[in-house]
């Protein structure tokens, strides 16, 4: 009996610019249920970070409580990690981001952790445009406590042993758009081709980037009457369009028919190519995103892909005008400049 990942790897496995293989971005072997969507999202995070050649020490992964919040153990084993209190991950990220603005902050949360206990924290992090990636592994149920409906369970959806949900569901994308998130996307754990470039773009985005990922719970919520099952999600997917992410240092090699592609340049010089976009969908326009979300909801479809982004977003540090140097690197000399400076300040207030 054994459940461990062998050490051997394929000799042709891809090596990134830093000389790392994908395995260098993996974490411990997952103890989530076999087939859990969360594991696919972990896999997509590993791929995105590997392909972006992120130095593992430059990233911190933070989470709250729940199946989703266990997931950070299973990816980026060489990065910083903080498994915090239920629903309080955004506060911890805020503190960490204030102390060290140089790190990449990857928050991982679930529908319970975000849409119930952590709702207050979530909307304020979005509203303040905290510079982080916020991934919700959204399965519409509380998998860790035997699958009760969560606040994102759609009205009428029924989990394996439950009754149809009598309540309206919370749409985290619509909500975050309303409170000022500057990058909003939805995806599906079973659509790696869409999810990986979205994660890459979210990491490159400056400001609060939400990716709400439908991630079926194979144990409690993958039955025929559930709107968060693999089959239902696949059948009801509607994509906003297709997206390629090209990091700054890479040459653009893909060719797009003239007029078919829309380029968005991010603050770090990376470029997002949007093509095959649906009619009336403009990801640079918040109103268009909200309309598209509502229309799809009426049609009973799940709209995935990049919904909205503001390439000129100003994140929290810019908004409050902190110093460029991370606070945790400031020494006593800068923080306690001495009596004469204090006297000057006092004098200015008299």
């Amino acid at each position, binding site marked *: *009996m*054994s*459940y*461990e*990942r*062998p*050490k*051997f*790897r*394929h*000799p*042709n*496995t*891809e090596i990134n610019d830093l000389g790392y293989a994908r*395995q260098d971005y993996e974490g411990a072997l*997952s103890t989530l*249920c*076999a*087939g*859990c*969507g969360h*594991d*696919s999202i*972990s*896999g997509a995070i*590993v791929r995105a970070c590997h392909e972006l050649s992120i130095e593992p020490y430059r990233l911190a992964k933070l989470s709250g409580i729940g199946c989703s919040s266990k997931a950070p153990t299973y990816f980026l084993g060489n990065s910083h990690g903080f498994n915090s209190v239920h629903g309080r991950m955004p506060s911890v990220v805020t503190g960490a981001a204030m102390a060290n603005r140089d790190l990449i902050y990857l928050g991982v949360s679930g529908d319970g952790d975000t849409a119930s206990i952590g709702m207050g924290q979530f909307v304020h992090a979005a509203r303040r445009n905290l510079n982080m990636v916020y991934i919700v592994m959204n399965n519409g149920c509380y998998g860790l406590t035997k699958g009760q409906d969560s606040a994102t369970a759609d009205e009428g959806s029924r989990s394996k042993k439950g009754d149809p949900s009598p309540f309206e569901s919370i749409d985290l994308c619509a909500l975050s758009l309303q409170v000022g998130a500057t990058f909003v996307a939805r995806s599906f*754990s*079973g659509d*790696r081709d869409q999810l990986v470039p979205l994660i890459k773009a979210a990491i490159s985005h400056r400001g609060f980037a939400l990716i709400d990922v439908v991630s*079926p719970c*194979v144990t409690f919520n*993958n039955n025929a009457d559930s709107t968060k099952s*693999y*089959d239902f999600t*696949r059948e009801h997917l509607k994509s906003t369009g297709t997206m390629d992410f090209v990091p700054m240092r890479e040459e653009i090699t893909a060719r797009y028919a003239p007029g078919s592609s829309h380029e968005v340049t991010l603050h770090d010089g990376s470029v997002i190519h949007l093509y095959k976009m649906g009619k009336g969908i403009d990801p640079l326009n918040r109103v268009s995103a909200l309309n598209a979300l509502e229309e799809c909801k009426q049609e009973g479809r799940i709209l995935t892909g990049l919904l909205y982004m503001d390439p000129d977003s100003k994140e929290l540090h810019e908004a409050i005008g902190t110093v460029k140097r991370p606070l945790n690197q400031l020494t006593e000399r800068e923080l306690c400049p001495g009596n004469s400076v204090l006297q000057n300040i006092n004098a200015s207030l008299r």
Partner: protein
Amino acid sequence: MKATNIKNPEYFHKVVDCQYACPAHTPVPEYIRLIARERYTDAYMVNWESNVFPGILGRTCDRPCEPACRRGRVEDEPVAICRLKRVAADNKDDIQDRLPNIPDKKNGKRVALIGGGPASLTVARDLMPLGYSIDLYDDQTGGGGMMKSQIPSFRLPESVLNEEVDYILDMGVVTHFNTTVDSLKEILDKKYDAVFIGTGAPRGKDLNLAGQADAGAHIHIGIDWLSSVAFEHSNNIGKRVVVLGGGNTAMDCCRTARRLGGEDVKVIVRSPFADMKASPWEKEDAMHEDIPIIDNHVPLAFVVEDGKFIGVTFDRVDAVYDDDGRRQLVSTGEDPVLFECDDVLMAIGQENSFPWIERDTGIKFDEWGMPKVDETTFQSAIKHVFFGGDAAFGPKNVITAVAHGHQAAVSIDHFCNGKNVTERLAPGVTLISQKMGIHEWSYDNAVPIDLRYVVPQADKALTLKDRKVEVELGYDLKTAYAEAERCLNCDVQTVFEEIRCIECDACIDICPTDCITFTPNAEEKLLRKKLSATATNLSQDLYVSEELPTHRVMVKDEDMCLHCGLCAERCPTTAWDMKKFLYTVTKAGQ
């Protein structure tokens, strides 16, 4: 690509690289698992059923399985399959009660076996339990053939040889040892129902160089000299010995010479060291016994001065390869170099020789003097005369002779029962899930990173004194266990059932060696480019499923699969399962 037909037994058979490469198709992972479970007798019997001589082969096999071993693709060295076989043989209990029953009432069919080597003995082993009456003829004092006369005792102790030969002879084979068959006609006149010729390739090649006649008694044919040592007709050799040739016989010659008084023994070979035919481990063993191997030297002449043998002269050459990889040995132009010595052993190859088969018996020969033998049935131009082993298609090795013996026995049994001789028996195949529970499989699916364990050897000071002291000591049981655990259990197959797959892609992420890809179907060439990790080894197959609901297919590159079972472990719907595939070659009468 078309969906893979896993019902074809040859598909999964090919995934079990070792078994596929073995001429007798011994179920290697099956017996290695038994060794790990300390079931040595069971492991021995799995071998015995398939290759008849586990103790002998566990010491001397050419091991075609090891270069094929998947472990050698994953890391540097394959599993020590051959030496694990020896562990089973050395640690088994008495097996008498497991040997097949020999019917008291015979079936009335009489078979003659000419030659007492591995091919003939295998035929006897397969036919005796079916009630055949068998006469075995050999000119040596006992059974074993070339295994007895050519393989030195320091590699294969006589007791090991005799034990396994006797399991067969004791089935009631009527032996005619010390009997030279010098006429096939005489045998045919005895009206046997079938005759099997397994007389090997008994003639050592001769160089016929200048000076050879004058050098006379100082020049020996390698295999003849080895057998004269084995039968104790010679027990010494000069202090300085030159061995010509680069095959395993040359290695046996030089190491035997070291034990019979040779102090300065050299192997001198025409080709570059890397091109030598000898197995790498045999070269290592020779060099370990202080025998230098000098390559790129082509022998020119034996030098005799004033009636005294001085040595051998060589032309120094370079190997030049053309675009097709063909080799030419080109003289460096330097002066010939003389290697002084007292004796020369020529081990430059063996050939077949059938002076005892009258050319008018009906057996047909080709232009090289080889009998015309069917490659599947081993039948000759005379319907009831069959060939096998080195006698059939030239010098190979023991395990090939065993494989021939099994198939020839099938043909003989068919022939004697009036069945179609060309008909072959379908292999026995089972495919059974190994799942025992959550995270629990019936095989050790963890993949240890241990490197290949070295087989300990007896002290050189001891072994060089006595040619009968076995050099290799064999693994102790603890090391044998560790080595057995290196086996990747390639016979435990990853079996995919598309109708259960929900395309959650969990298997793609978990696979440590990126074997699994879900992608729209395409031609093989294109498909290979789209794999999670590009395939470079094209000799391994792609396992392709039927189309899935999202219009993709599952493609698994069998090349680097570790058979760790994580895909099945991570699959929520058991679309992947680990199933043990047991493939057995069906023998005569089964």
